[in-house]
């Protein structure tokens, strides 16, 4: 299993990475040391997580000296940060496994050796200040970042154990298994019905019955069925903002994906619509693995099982939602969730 892929060889050389030998390097279980941008040959395995950095153990170095945290030092030095991952998460069965994933927009690095797992059937919230790379990480999972001209990445992810970034992978296949909801609702200029069954149509499904069933199921899940069942043939563009976003959700789950990626799905919605979306997320929990980016701490607390806090392209702390909000291990996390920083 190739755990780490160099998407762009030369870049590794050109990316200035100051490596501090004292620093605990991120580790990659069974990985290839040396390929890691920051490994510098010190592939010391930690705990059971293997490839997940900082598993439940607070290294002495992380405490830093004279009040300067290890995290702040990493930022200052432009180095990746080995995230603090709560141990309880490591025991879970995972669907997506992010392995030391880094991403560059041209010369600018947007993700620094992210290593984390998304548990099957659970909802994971990604929080963090704007520009910290949440959307980038989300788009990396279904490889939508490929569309951006200058993007290069290193590291790998797996979906159900198969690599997402291996050259032999059919991107289209990956995307068929992952649904995505965007921050801004983007229904197609077609009828409501056609919007919902889009994924099935592109798979060549022509049977009317199958399409209608899928449409109804998806719309019911998205709590939209009752509102639109009489006007399925009308244009989707005539709906209200909240309805449009729920339509996009219905579209994303119509083909029954394993994973649903949601990038701030409620940021443009009114409170009632937001509630409906949250209700939806709670309902599908168990069936679909959800990764949701949100700025709303309460929302994260309400809908997610686990929460990951990201900051400046690094994963800082990743743990069960209750722990992150009530008992964060790192001072940065605490500052962020209590609103004192970020």
């Amino acid at each position: 299993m190739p755990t780490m892929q160099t998407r762009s060889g030369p870049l590794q050389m050109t990316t200035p990475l100051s490596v501090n030998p004292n620093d605990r390097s991120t580790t990659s279980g069974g990985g290839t040391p040396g390929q890691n941008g920051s490994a510098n040959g010190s592939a010391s395995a930690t705990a059971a997580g293997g490839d997940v950095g900082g598993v439940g153990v607070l290294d002495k170095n992380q405490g830093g000296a004279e009040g300067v945290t290890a995290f702040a030092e990493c930022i200052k030095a432009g180095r990746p940060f080995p995230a603090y991952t709560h141990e309880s998460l490591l025991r879970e069965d995972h669907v997506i496994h992010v392995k030391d994933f880094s991403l560059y927009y041209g010369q600018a690095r947007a993700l620094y050796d992210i290593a984390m797992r998304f548990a099957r059937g659970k909802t994971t919230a990604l929080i963090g200040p704007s520009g910290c790379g949440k959307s980038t990480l989300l788009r990396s999972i279904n490889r939508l970042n490929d569309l951006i001209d200058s993007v290069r990445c290193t590291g790998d992810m797996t979906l159900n154990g198969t690599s997402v970034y291996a050259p032999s992978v059919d991107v289209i296949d990956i995307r068929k298994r992952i649904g995505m909801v965007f921050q801004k609702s983007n229904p197609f200029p077609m009828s409501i019905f056609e919007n919902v069954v889009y994924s099935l149509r592109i798979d060549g499904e022509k049977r009317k019955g199958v399409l209608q069933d899928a449409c109804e199921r998806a719309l019911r899940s998205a709590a939209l069925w009752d509102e639109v069942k009489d006007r399925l043939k009308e244009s989707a563009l005539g709906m209200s903002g909240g309805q449009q976003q729920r339509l996009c959700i219905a579209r994303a789950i119509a083909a029954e994906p394993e994973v649903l990626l949601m990038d701030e799905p409620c940021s443009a919605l009114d409170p009632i619509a937001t509630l409906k979306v949250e209700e939806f997320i709670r309902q599908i929990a168990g069936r679909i693995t959800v990764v949701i980016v949100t700025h709303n701490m309460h929302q994260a607390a309400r809908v997610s099982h686990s929460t990951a806090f990201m900051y400046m392209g690094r994963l800082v702390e990743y743990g069960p939602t209750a722990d992150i909000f009530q008992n964060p291990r790192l001072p940065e996390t605490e500052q962020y969730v209590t609103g004192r920083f970020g």
Partner: protein
Amino acid sequence: MAEHKTNPAPNASRRVTRSSVRFVDAMMKAIVTVGGVGVIVAVTGILLYLAGNVLPLLTPGAARFERTVKVEALAAKTTPQGPANVHTIEGGNSAPLIMAVDEYRASATMLLRDGRLLWTTIDQTPVIVNKPGVEGVGGVGGTGGADGGKVITSATSISEVGAFALGFSDGTIQLGELKYETEFVNELPAAAQSKKLARGERSALIGEEGTQGGWGVVERTPLDQYRVTKPIFTLQNPATPEWPEPAAGAAAATKPGKAVVRIDYRNSVLASYLLLMREDGVAALERVTFVRPLGGGKPRTKLESERVAFKPRTDGGSAIPDWFFVTGDGSNALALWKDGRLDRYARALKGGATSNDDEGLIFAETVKLVESGRTVTAASMLLGARTLIIGDDRGTIRGCFASRQNTASTPDGLKFVVAHQFTSVIPSPVTAIATAGRDRRFVAGHEDGSLIARHMTSHKVLGESLPKDLAGIDAKARAVTVAAFSPKMDGLYAISTAGVLRSYSLDAKYADASLSSLFTPVWYEGDEGPSSTWQSSAGEDTAEIKYSLTPLIFGTLKATVYAMLFAAPIAILAAIYTSELLHPRVRNRVKPIIETMASLPSVVLGFVAAMIVAPLARDILPGVLMGFFVVPVTTLAAAYLWQMIPVRFRSGLGSGVQLALVSLVTVIGLSLAIGLSRPLEKVLFQPSTNDQLVLAGAVKEVPREQWPEGLKAFASLSSEIAKPYREQGFYVAGGKLVKPEGLVSDPAIAEIIRRERLDEPSMRRWLDGNIGTPWAGWFLLMVPASFILVALVRGRFIDPWVLRFVPRTGLKAAVSELTKFVFSLVASLLLAYVLANALVGMGLDSRESIFGSFSQRNTLVVAIVMGFAIIPIIYTISEDALSAVPGSLRSASLGCGATKWQTALRVVLPIAGSGIFSACMIGLGRAAGETMIVLMATGNTPTTSWNIFEGMRTLAANIAVELPEAPSGETHYRVLFMGGLCLFVMTFVINTVAEVIRQRFRKRSAAL
């Protein structure tokens, strides 16, 4: 603003707009307004200018009544028995035989039936003089003069040259001229010395009685010269024609006698003809030459006679025709009776089955020109003397001529037809018809005195008399006995039975074009039927000018459609490719390159088209044609093969490599097309042994008795007609039906075949219809159609079925796709084969479709080169439209697992559709107005066939070619403007429709 102090915001710092900003704002507003209004004014101005130049074409002409002149000598002494005509002199009708008006419309001269000349000024106080004209004429009509002298028994005149011919009771004829002579003098002539003329004033000049030069009109010109216009009446010596022996039985039907009762005269630069008929029914066609005796003196009229096998009528009507005409080229004699029967005598086709050169004019056909119950009351020949104009007793006028008809059984293959019909509002019998000397207009005078001048081709009414013009004339004697145009056709004259000469000034405007003649088919002289033809200039003055804009509009559409068929798919697909599939970095380099193509001057493209593409396309014609089939197929095949490459290798290749691969495939496709063209030519366009023999000239003529039944009806054969019989071995060569004879192995024939390379397959010979059957063309045409059909069937029935056994992705799927592709290819070829056979079986010829005879500068070349001119435009605008589609929709679609192509097709294209549509419309507009390329790359032949191997003439090219030669302000000039206006309207309509459709599209995606 200071006034707002009353309501100050506590913390707001007061912001003031600087006056300079206000000034710039106001100024820019003014400039933009002026500019915008200016553009609108300019466009409207152009439209108005065009319309202003075109409008006079559509306005009817007008005749303005000037005055009446009462000429007592012309008043009927007795009530006329029937309608009067110069050709028929019945009883004591007093109408003049010949009438001529001078160029300045100052006076009229007439030859009366008693041989005297009558001259009158046409003004308020007419001066009328009467003097002897033709010597030795005794009396009027009947059997002889009171003094025993000869009598004028028939007369005719040719208004355009001022010549006339008279036939006498003693069997002689006499030719003469009645003309005017104008001279400018500085001194007032002696005869008018007593007068003091103001500028522009006229006065009659009367010399002594009997002196030729004594009459005339003098006018003081604005330059204080005196212009003297005098009639000149000259007569040749009388001549005695040679008469052929009367036909057997003719004498029984006619009364004996030698008086020349019918005469018709044609005088042209090439030859002059006299057609004569004697009282006893003997007719002769005389070729007239003038011999000037040595030593001076009057020229002698020399007549060479030719037989006219005239058969007097025996079915109850008068034996002798009421009118007897010869056509301008002396090839036809027309005998017309009052009941509308016309017997045509014609020179038989040379080499025809029944002809013999010595026979002269033989009987060709009898036709009935009017419905029974109607009577022909007047007849005359139009300018050029090919069209006969007849008027009947209900005021209807018909224009008739001998027209080319394939099925005509006449010896010359022509058929006399009524091609034009003008029904009159007032059903008053037509009593006189006069034609003009310079164009195809004619005037009809009716029994009630009304006059209508019309143009034969355009059917336009050029001028009409009003009832009030007749106020001073006795109501019972208003019938027009003689009508005439002035030499410049700016005046119109009519003499009524009461002896009153009416004069009109005629402003005919633009007689030879009307809306209907410009846009609807017109039956042009001699043609098989109504047609739309553009022929703005002709070799002879008498030929009919054909202004039909339809072929030009058609040509414009043809060029545009073919260019769009070539350019639009390429440009749109290229736009989709670069914006949706190509890596942005590569796109940023490709786009500007394509856009620079737009800056190529069209004259350069035209030059390239004419000098490089046209000869190249001619030389590798089958290859070019093959390209349209082979390139798409190779590309498709390559795509299917590509699918079979494991994803592992594929996805590693950047889009630059992919682009290179696609280019490689295209090049392979093109070379395959060239390479396959030879074998294809061999399969499709191989001449049969018969074809080779016929082309080599090894044929023998098939006698008429052995002709296939279907061909027997035809008088003359063309390859077109005989094509269906080629299967049976019948060919047409040199207008004859032939069968190949001989062996290709015969050394002489083999030598010809080898030298002319007749045994080699040739698409051009096939296109020209010389070899092969229509099958090949149908097959080629049916291949794409069948492919689409097969693909539809496959998508609907086969694909879902196959999916049950084969997975959607993976190598297996790829193999199944490729197999399906190969099978559909084979299936469509088979289907095309079957369809082509069916079409051939139905007797349809593919060489009358988009295939047809080949000319080097053809529409294919234009389509390709003009395509290159419009591809950049369509591409750029389409690309912009595609790029403008929000990326969020693309992400949404791709996020759903759609491929880029699915995304492009299902999401991006529908949204960008309006933009792509406008792109096409703008390209269409550019193609419609394109001039240089079509001008240089086509033969500019104004045809109306969709044949892609033939040229066309577009409106724009036509204007470019002909405007320099069209005299400003003339009909031709204005018709060209009309063409410009049509182009303007066409593009306007295209753009408006495009805009409307675009707005609709846009509304749909407005909410994005």
